[in-house]
């Protein structure tokens, strides 16, 4: 399987009790931020992503959020670009996964087409193109897109970007939201007709069906861990795949998991407890529930189902007060020695057929030295146990960048020759 380092860019110095007074998005006050600490928070994220690439993770992943204290990443291609260049300069074979620029939110979809194409070029065809709709607060409050237009804009923008990448000649675009007299992209992706496309989603049946129809990969970014909602979402996905005549290739599925590794279970708890709690409480826990669904963002049937079930069944509603024990027992975060962590991950990866795992190894207030230790230990002692998980089934990862797959083939041929 492929394992990538997923990183958000939180401000790492949130004051105690922040979540009792403020939201972490949209209206989050800036007056407590110290410029030097903001610099430290941002630079650490760049450094840790490079550390992950050097440590041998298969890819790096970044996301986009505006007006947010838990992910100060208004344009993830900026971050990805630095890592793509660094990796290229050092000869590191790492996928650059942008999960991504929000297509429902953007007012300049061709900028996204250009930025992704540029990343694919400088990385030598190692880009994974994430096409998220965008969270409601980001699209509808920060970017002020009427909520009911979010998904229609998403579809139009995706279609436009795909055409702009692969259409040989300049073309006009007369869309509902965008009009261009002449679309003629420079540069265009090395991977043609397009880089592998990953769609982050919350697992609604409509979205899953569309992903399978188009043969994209589904990325489940839930922060809920595998236990609470995994069964429901993944079973639904594989059932739909079967119904729609798609194979059971585990690489169709990517999943995000928060992980914290130390030498022993006891030491892991001691080192990570405060940072994990802070992450959930002042970060995701401090996003008001209403910010995830401004009226019009979700279809009436989805809202009705949500009201009937009393929420998502996940941790989100409880994150503000989550204790370390709840976080660990529910597997919202998997924490412990390399053996503990590898056992737990391997079990759910096999159960749910996850081919692309994203591990989030920095959280909340976690400082750079501890994060880099987490990355190093994970890469050295957990990763080797996870990599061969799907080898015996012989699937090809069609959702992995060509630049790297070519490399795999060259290496495999070389290895065969040696043998």
């Amino acid at each position: 399987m492929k394992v990538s380092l997923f990183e958000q860019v939180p401000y790492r110095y949130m004051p105690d009790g922040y979540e009792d007074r403020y939201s972490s998005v949209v209206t989050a006050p800036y007056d407590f931020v110290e410029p030097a600490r903001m610099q430290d928070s941002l630079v650490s994220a760049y450094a840790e992503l490079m550390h992950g690439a050097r440590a041998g993770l298969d890819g790096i992943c970044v996301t986009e959020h505006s007006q947010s204290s838990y992910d100060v990443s208004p344009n993830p291609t900026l971050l990805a670009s630095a890592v793509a260049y660094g990796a290229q300069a050092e000869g590191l074979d790492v996928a650059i996964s942008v999960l991504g620029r929000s297509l429902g939110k953007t007012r300049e979809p061709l900028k996204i087409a250009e930025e992704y194409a540029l990343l694919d070029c400088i990385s030598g065809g190692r880009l994974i193109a994430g096409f998220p709709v965008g969270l409601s607060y980001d699209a509808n409050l920060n970017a002020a897109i009427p909520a009911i237009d979010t998904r229609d804009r998403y579809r139009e923008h995706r279609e436009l970007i795909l055409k702009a990448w692969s259409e040989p000649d300049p073309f006009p675009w007369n869309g509902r939201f965008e009009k261009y007299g002449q679309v003629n992209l420079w540069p265009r992706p090395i991977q043609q007709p397009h880089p592998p496309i990953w769609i982050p989603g919350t697992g609604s049946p409509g979205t899953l069906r569309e992903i399978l129809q188009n043969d994209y990969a589904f990325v489940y970014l839930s922060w809920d861990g595998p236990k609470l909602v995994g069964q429901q979402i993944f079973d639904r996905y594989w059932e739909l795949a079967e119904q729609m005549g798609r194979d059971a290739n585990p690489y169709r599925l990517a999943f995000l998991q928060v992980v914290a590794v130390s030498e022993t279970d006891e030491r892991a708890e001691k080192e990570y407890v405060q940072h994990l709690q802070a992450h959930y409480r002042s970060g995701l826990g401090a996003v008001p529930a209403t910010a995830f669904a401004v009226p019009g963002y979700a279809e009436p049937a989805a809202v009705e189902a949500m009201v009937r079930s009393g929420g998502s069944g996940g941790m989100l509603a409880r994150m503000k007060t989550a204790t370390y024990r709840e976080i660990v027992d529910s597997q919202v975060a998997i924490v412990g020695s390399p053996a503990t962590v590898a056992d737990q991950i391997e079990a759910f990866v096999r159960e749910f057929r996850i081919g692309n795992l994203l591990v989030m190894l920095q959280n909340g207030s976690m400082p750079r030295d501890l994060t880099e230790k987490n990355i190093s230990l994970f890469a050295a002692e957990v990763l080797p146990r996870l990599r061969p998980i799907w080898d015996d089934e012989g699937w090809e990862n069609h959702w992995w960048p060509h630049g790297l797959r070519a490399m795999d083939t060259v290496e495999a041929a070389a290895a065969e020759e040696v043998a």
Partner: protein
Amino acid sequence: MATSEAPVRDETVEVFGGRLRLHVKVAGDGPPLVHFHPLPGLAWQPLLDQLAEQHTVYAPEHPGTSPGDPQAIREVETFFELLLVYEEAVRALGLERPAAVGQSFGGMIAADLAATFPRLFSRLVLLSPIGLWRDDAPIPLMEMVAGPPEDTPKYLFAHPESLAAQAAQALPDDPDQIPALIAQTTWNIGCTTKFAWPIADHGLGRRLHRIAVPTLVVWGRDDALVPVAYAAEFGSRIRGSQVEVLDDCGHAVQADQPERTWTAISKFLDS
């Protein structure tokens, strides 16, 4: 103030080249009057019964807000198209210069229709309409819509505890019906805010001078959604208009001050 409850019937009119079936509630008898509802959709309220005593009231439901027809909103892409839809509907219903009453979001629609089609209506009543913007008097519409539902009453009512305010927010007795109602209201607000987001300013202020019919503007002095400063703003831009500002009254004037609101409206419509 005893009001008989008029029987209300449903009509649909086909508009926009047959692409849209607009649902219209109709009640009463007398000269025609078109009512335009606020953000959460059409709720048949005492004010409509009062209007129906002397008028045939036509109360269209904003596209997408009619139960069972949520996707109708996709047929209306722009605010301009929304105005065309209503202008077509008035003609399709065969109404000859009806009076128009618009509340809040519906007030913006009614005012813009009267400005865009100066011969469409005979009279115009605007109850605390949105549609203008002043930097010194921001309208917290986005904050209300995206905020927790329990905060909504404080934007709408001077007295959230009053019977009329409670009635306006009442949930059904049958708990099984509540999720569907919440989903419907949420979607309705999505359908209306499509044309009011993030700031409901489509340039109405630059067109209000075109309104050529007698106009009444009613406002609550304590309006916490659209500050009372906008009453004078509408009043000064609509030639010959009459402005009534009600004391001890919030945004939902007909709920906070039903009698004084009705007195102002009925006097104006009778004159």
